[in-house]
């Protein structure tokens, strides 16, 4: 698992105790995501990876799994990088 995915897994593991969350696993399907986690997750990725989650990123598919979140981080990081 790459370092970004590893950090996301560590964060999400707080909410998915006793479950070894896999990179592609759908966290919404697991049923533990509530509005508390939703906002904390946004704050986490912004602070941890130095990106800004914007209105156009509000798509469940961006937050559905460790892989999806890592993908969002990669896209936002690339967007913010100087050309």
């Amino acid at each position, binding site marked *: 698992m790459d370092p970004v995915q590893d950090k996301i897994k560590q964060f999400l593991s707080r909410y998915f105790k006793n479950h070894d969350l896999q990179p592609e696993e759908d966290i919404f399907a697991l049923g533990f995501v509530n509005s508390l986690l939703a906002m904390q997750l946004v704050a986490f990725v912004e*602070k941890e990876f130095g990106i800004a989650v914007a209105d156009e990123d509000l*798509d469940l598919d961006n937050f559905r799994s460790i892989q999806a979140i890592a993908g969002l981080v990669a896209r936002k990081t690339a967007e913010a990088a100087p050309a």
Partner: protein
Amino acid sequence: MKLELTAEQRAARAEFRSFVAAEIAPHAGRWDREEAIPPHVIDRLRERRYLGSNVSPEFGGAGRDMIAYGLLTEEIAKGCSSVRSLLTVHDMVAHAIQRWGSRGQKERYLPPLARGEILGALALSEPNAGSDAKGIETTAVDGGDGWVLDGRKKWTTFGQIAGLLLVFAQVEGKAAAFLVERETPGISVRPLKGILGTRASMLAEIELRACRVPRESLLGRVGFGISHIAAAALEHGRYSVAWGSVGIAQACLDACRAYTAERRQFGVPLADHQLIRRLLTDMIVDVRAARLLCLRAGSLRDSGDPGAFMETMAAKYFASRLAVRAANDAVQIHGANGCSDDYPVGRYLRDAKVMEIIEGSTQIQQITLPLFEFQEF
């Protein structure tokens, strides 16, 4: 962790305190009785850039940090909780736009909100939906070139005079948020009178009937109205209410300090009676504890820490309950005088009770806080 205010923050607090002592506190009782904040007071808040003060300088705001904002809120609340309500709801709308608005929405609304040229109000609660925000019945349907809103909002703070409403509605069963300008055809506003506390907050019931708004009125995305847009606004509101509650409690303490020094019973000042001192001690210690919780929440919010959500909720929970206790004890200490309009503590008690209800009731927080706590390692 530094718990000391910076020199700049202390100077800002002195400025807020001086303004409130001169222009807010002496008149708050009258505004409470008249159930309105006079327009010239709102002008003074505008001039001092106390409205929308968290808005980024990029959009013409003062860019005040969360600690300075908290200090401002506490000082305003010491003088008048209704004026504090204006800051709270106006800033909730500005915060939601700053957090989740498109570039176009930010450019259109943040500068006038930061200048206080338009006032913002949050239209979430309805006659049948309070704590159960997801149970809102207002609908928005796709009307081709825009959205058509129908429904009824209630308890909208400063809804009587707000120029911009952040309206929450269901789009085919999914929550969404819309920025609705007051002059939009189809909006009617009915003032609500006789409210228990924060009585000058100019509450309104707002009816939206075939209210057509442009497509770009949608804030964020459909389906994220409660989970992200309302959550962001309410988190800011809880922070503001927490500090506002500290302000009420401090005002109670200040009133009791003056009264117990001046009022004599059994041949000595009230302050010399041990049972009175016991009440004062709880107030003195609790207000410090509440302020520390607020400072911690503010520090975490400034750093973007995910833990800020829980700390803000904890601060609001503790501070709002403290405000009720402090105000209740303040009335008790004042005796019959506390039950009259001659002293402000009766108003503080009515205002404090409201703090336990708005931006997440005490009971909602009792349900939610353990979930936050136990999700951690």
